[in-house]
């Protein structure tokens, strides 16, 4: 099968189709029902494909320059994209209708994310966070970040979101538009951050090879720092039960457990790979699998609830640039050469 060369292939994942839509693939979004996939690339195109067989349904000229992010609204109706051109655009998924430019920031829009209830779209451009409703109105705007924002994540319970930048995570509450965000400070340049699904914890990876972890339950948030990574912590992913967080900064996936007093003082699970550096890590929505991929184009899937045991290995044509699970155990992988691969995982 083109795009997937023979590696150690196991029982749990079956490569389904591989395409080469063209240029370096930058981001992707599964439809919530897992029937479609939207993929952005480095020449500004958005390609819509049918998940089952990889048939191209539509191609849009979405942006001038790279598509930075793609995001499918939780109700399945809208696809939003952001680009190097500073624009955020929206499309009706069912018929490809362009809904126009929702934002024009004059700066790269590095992150976009739909709120869990789909009523709001958050975006970050430079040091600005903007949250808009579906009518395109801004309901929250904040420009006080210490540096360009590197992470954006909604609390799964809704109504709250976080951003990360140099030396801190900021927690925002919708409806509190005049209140300053709560700042979780640290001495690192953060490159990503995410709420645990439970909303109790925040985990962030940094440029200087550390993971920062906050437990928000106590009156004063407990801040823990985990060190020892070989490289900047480029990727992290929470397990759906919030009991584990997988991180990667180098050739190994390091999984911390949140039980008891949290990861501080505990010994993590480490899963080595053959990648020089892992760039993506993702826990499947059902919690049954953990996937990781990296600079050598390798994709690893650990089956089983505890993510233990030997992974299955697949080899892509080029360094993996985007990777993510659908709601139904489909894994999409895009690489720098433009190859797109989908896999379906059988129940372990």
């Amino acid at each position: 099968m083109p795009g997937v060369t023979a590696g150690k292939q196991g029982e749990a994942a079956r490569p389904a189709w591989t395409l080469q839509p063209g240029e370096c693939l930058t981001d992707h979004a599964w439809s919530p029902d897992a029937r479609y996939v939207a993929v952005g690339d480095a020449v500004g195109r958005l390609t819509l494909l049918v998940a089952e067989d990889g048939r191209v349904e539509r191609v849009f000229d979405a942006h001038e320059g790279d598509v930075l992010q793609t995001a499918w609204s939780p109700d399945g109706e809208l696809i939003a994209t952001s680009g190097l051109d500073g624009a955020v655009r929206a499309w009706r998924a069912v018929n490809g209708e362009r809904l126009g430019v929702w934002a024009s920031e004059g700066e790269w829009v590095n992150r976009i994310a739909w709120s869990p209830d789909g009523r709001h779209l958050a975006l970050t451009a430079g040091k600005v966070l903007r949250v808009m409703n579906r009518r395109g109105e801004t309901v929250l705007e904040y420009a006080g970040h210490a540096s360009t924002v590197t992470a954006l994540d909604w609390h799964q319970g809704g109504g709250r979101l976080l951003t990360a930048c140099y030396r801190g995570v900021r927690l925002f509450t919708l409806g509190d538009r005049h209140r300053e965000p709560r700042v979780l400070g640290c001495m690192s340049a953060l490159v990503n951050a995410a709420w645990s699904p439970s909303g109790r914890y925040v985990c962030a990876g940094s440029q200087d090879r550390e993971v920062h972890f906050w437990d928000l339950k106590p009156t004063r948030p407990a801040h823990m720092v985990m060190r020892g990574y070989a490289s900047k912590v480029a990727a992290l992913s929470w397990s759906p039960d919030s009991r584990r967080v997988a991180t990667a900064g180098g050739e190994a996936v390091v999984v911390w457990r949140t039980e008891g007093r949290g990861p501080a003082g505990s010994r993590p699970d480490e899963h080595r790979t053959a990648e020089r550096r892992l760039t993506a890590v993702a826990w499947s929505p059902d919690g049954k699998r953990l996937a990781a991929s990296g600079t050598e184009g390798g994709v690893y899937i650990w089956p089983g609830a505890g993510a233990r045991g030997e992974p299955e290995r697949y080899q892509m044509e080029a360094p993996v640039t985007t990777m993510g699970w659908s709601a139904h155990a489909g894994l999409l992988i895009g690489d720098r050469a433009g190859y797109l691969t989908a896999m379906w995982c059988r129940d372990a």
Partner: protein
Amino acid sequence: MDAVNDDRVPVTVLSGFLGSGKTTLLNRILTEQHGKRIAVIENEFGEIGIDNELVMHSDEEIFEMNNGCICCTVRGDLIRILGRLMTRRDRFDHIMIETTGLADPGPVAQTFFMDDEIRENLRLDAIVTVVDAKHVAQHIGASRECQEQIAFADVILLNKTDLVAAGALDDLDEAIRGMNAVARIHRTQHAEIDIGCVLGVRAFELRSKLDVDPDFLKEELPFEWAGSYELSAGNHELHCAPGPDPELDVVVLELADASPAAFEAAKKQGVLDFSGMPVRIEPGGALMVGGQRNRLVIAETGGRFALNVPRTGRHVLFTQHLPVELDMKLRHNGAPLAPEEAREYAAPHEHDSSISSVGIGTPGSLDADRFESWMMALLRIKGVDIFRMKGVLSLAGKEERFVFQGVHMLFDGVEDRPWDGEERYNQLVFIGRNLDRDELEQGFRACLV
């Protein structure tokens, strides 16, 4: 990664104040037909006059690393933008980063050492600084940014030479070299220069030869004069009149014979001895022949010192200053002695700025562990003030030359080709602020086996 197989994209950092000719150079590079496709990241606002799809703008964002060391910084914006450029890497052959005149080159350089994603995909080709000769002549003493940009550069374009008199230009050239002994300096008008001098320089490649004026390493000796004499065993006298310095360091060694080889051998030994602890000799006191660094204390009325020569034969005197400056005379039984041979060496450069280059060149081999300990302690304490370091070293027990370079506390070294019978020699250049030559030399020499 070796040079032949390195397919990483080369990056040139172009620095200089607005008006220096930096933008002229950049525009020329972008328009000239040299067959290279160039992507540009500009920090100055909208300065580039060319419409180019691959021109990106960035606002400088400096991130301090979390190790408590204030010189360990990276440019967060460049990490992000260079990472983004990698999605289209087939569309260009070279990247230029145009920094502002006020930019600290330290974080830019360190970014290429410290971020793994960048190291995997990109290599720093050279830091090129364009300098307005007329402007810098007036400001070089006072402008810290100006000095730092010169200190960090691999290539310096001394531009607008048509506006400066030849003599002043030579002085400026010398002042710049005093700060940065390793950079290539080109004199230009209207930033006109062969592209090959600015792109494809490979300044950060670890090469087994330092691109330094060989005289810089050889001639910066701790003594200004050496004279050889035929001396008979017994007492001699050394007279000094008051002069520019109330002290004079002298080392006296026996020579094996009158050959040039013996002289060279003694000279190397003399350099080593000159970094030993000085022993103060008051007027009327006696100098020692052999490894002692005699520090003659010259009173306001001058000094007379005794020199006892154990064995008849050829000897050499190394003196910190020229004898003529102190009317120094060697006498035996009252009669003045003339040297058989005398050599003068250049005095170390005087500097207006606190930024200088210190070069150490000595034969021998280093104890690798001692050197590493010394270097790490030095960088920990002085890392902020040491901008660049380049060296080729001989390590005891290793067949290969060790080549390395560093920026602040970051250090990268590899084994190069074997010495193979070639004389083992160490070359080390520091470029930085408030460098203490004596301290660096002593510390380095303590690592020799």
